């Protein structure tokens, strides 16, 4: 079977559940209007952050994600209570309420943040990789973005510069086949996006983004290439969101049965079946889910009890 040994797989499953439950809880808090504004969930895409972060050394590596980044923050090790608090606009949020759902960061855990400008973090990740040339850290930078971001100029410039200078960047495309409400297939001639790596003379790998073990393996190879000085790698992970682009998206642009069909191959289902096939029992599997539910529920309680961001601090930190 393609999965790693059961202990790792159980840890992976725990990682998937934590994100899934976190996002479900966010949905509830948004619907209850305790969280304000646009929220982009990664339900269905959890295997990408869980697999990729397992392949990184977050004491020195740097992750740059998009607005769809709660799962990435969690996989990096951010405290779920601090993440909830951030979404809720509380003082104890990762960013003290300044960032919100779509722009939060937690550099203490290697999470250099979400970005709400499509593709803008790709060159920033190149800069983090560039710094590794000089600071002796051995850092690898990972920039994750969507299929639609591949058509943004900044991403092109980032890939070329990283390639030309052999910089340690993993460019990871979460290809969920939609850019907001528009299918990527209508916006490119060839939706085999990994083939663009060749334009930069950069290696590219495709991976099933619903298979957490496969993601870990492919990203680990990319990180190895980076760490050993061979320069950047493009990884395309095929996956899907099981929810709308944002909370409230009616998804009228999606074929009715698409999401239903995807439920059979989504990461938690896939990994749970594999673990069952490898001998894991129902009790063991349910316990993983239950622990995640308990942890996340407690985190939400903590966050909800925190004071709101203090308006008196609003002018702080514009400059040093």
């Amino acid at each position, binding site marked *: 079977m393609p999965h790693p040994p059961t202990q790792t797989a159980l840890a992976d499953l725990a990682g998937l559940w934590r994100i899934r439950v976190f996002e479900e809880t966010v949905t509830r808090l948004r619907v209850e209007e305790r969280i304000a504004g646009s929220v982009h969930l990664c339900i269905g895409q959890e295997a990408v952050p869980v697999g990729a972060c397992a392949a990184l050394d977050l004491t020195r590596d740097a992750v740059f994600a998009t607005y769809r980044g709660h799962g990435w923050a969690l996989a990096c090790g951010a405290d779920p209570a601090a993440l909830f608090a951030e979404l809720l606009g509380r003082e104890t949020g990762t960013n003290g309420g300044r960032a919100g759902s779509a722009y939060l960061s937690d550099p203490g855990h290697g999470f250099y943040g979400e970005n709400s400008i499509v593709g803008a973090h790709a060159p920033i990740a190149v800069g983090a990789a560039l710094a590794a040339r000089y600071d002796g850290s051995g850092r690898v930078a990972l920039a994750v973005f969507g299929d639609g971001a591949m058509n943004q100029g900044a991403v092109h410039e980032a890939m070329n510069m990283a390639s030309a200078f052999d910089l340690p960047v993993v460019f990871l495309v979460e290809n969920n086949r939609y850019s907001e409400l528009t299918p990527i297939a209508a916006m490119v001639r060839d939706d085999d996006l990994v083939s663009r790596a060749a334009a930069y003379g950069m290696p590219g790998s495709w991976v099933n983004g619903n298979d957490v073990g496969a993601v870990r393996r492919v990203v680990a190879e990319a990180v190895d290439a980076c760490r050993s000085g061979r320069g950047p790698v493009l990884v395309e992970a095929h996956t899907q969101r099981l929810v709308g682009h944002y909370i409230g998206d009616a998804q009228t642009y999606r074929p009715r049965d698409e999401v239903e069909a995807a439920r059979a191959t989504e990461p938690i289902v896939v990994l749970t079946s594999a673990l069952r096939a490898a001998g894991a029992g129902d009790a063991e599997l349910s316990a993983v889910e239950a622990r995640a539910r308990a942890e996340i529920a407690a985190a939400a309680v903590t966050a909800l009890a925190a004071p709101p961001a203090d308006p008196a601090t609003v*002018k702080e930190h514009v400059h040093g």
Partner: protein
Amino acid sequence: MAEITYAQAVNAALRRALSEDPGTLLFGEDVALPGGVHGVTRRLRREFGERVFDTPISESAILGGAVGAAMMGLRPIVEIMWADFAFVAFDQLINQAANVRYVSRGRLTAPMTVRTQQGATPGSCAQHSQSVEALFAHVPGLRVCLPATPQDAYDLLLAAIGCDDPVVVIESRELYHSLKGPVDQDGPRAPIGGARVHRAGSDLSVVTWGPMLHTVLEAARVLESSGVSVEVIDARWIDPFDTDTVVDSVSRTGRLAVVHAANLTGGFGAEVVARVVERGVSLSAPPLRIATEDLRIPAAPALQRAAIPGRDTVAGRLLSMVAPATTA
């Protein structure tokens, strides 16, 4: 006249432009099949077919595509989904669209309309919250307007589309679905330019634009109950800016305040103040700018409220402007 929302008014103006002129195109991210992320362009693809289409997430290609199509004689209307996103492709406005007519001595023109929207709404992050009209207004060759009512959302957009030069229409995300009003859709297309006096007053002239108009109108009502009469001018167009209407008003009231949601420093409020004082209008109090603090826009609603002037802040500061005079 039926009441429609601000978003519906935009939709109606687009429909009229697309119907009346076959050279009109409408394109941008998610504007066609999905009908826009805010539903503003709904049904237009169905009605106008391939003249309405979705694009890749490529703002330089969208704006550059508009410049090129306009140079060839079409009349493209493009959407930049958030004004904040214009900066990934600002070159196409400042160095391309704005130069076409001048540098060719009018042999080429760029009759294109860029629709976008701006403003902070609860939870919106620093990259989705800025009010950036001053950055467009400093570019000669671009026209810039900010409709604040459904009727203006309709009228200003049609005027923009009819203009033979590039126009940036900055709509208000917060007003799209929250503001309704009667909209006359049968009038002739207005030319660009012209402020509107929303409320006559004698003690103080307030110039504003965009959704801040409504905050100012509320503040004016508060001040009315304190016996202070506020004239409220919606600039509507900041290029061309209707200096005369403002100067006339301030000449009568002797006091000028400008209120905007953009950051204070370098905001267009400074331009308004400068134009009025340069004319030597005699003032009974120093002019006042009320604007968002010079900071990045925080997402948390409590922080946003502390950063962006609301009704009470505006009313309080306007009152302090007349207080010394009325107590004197």
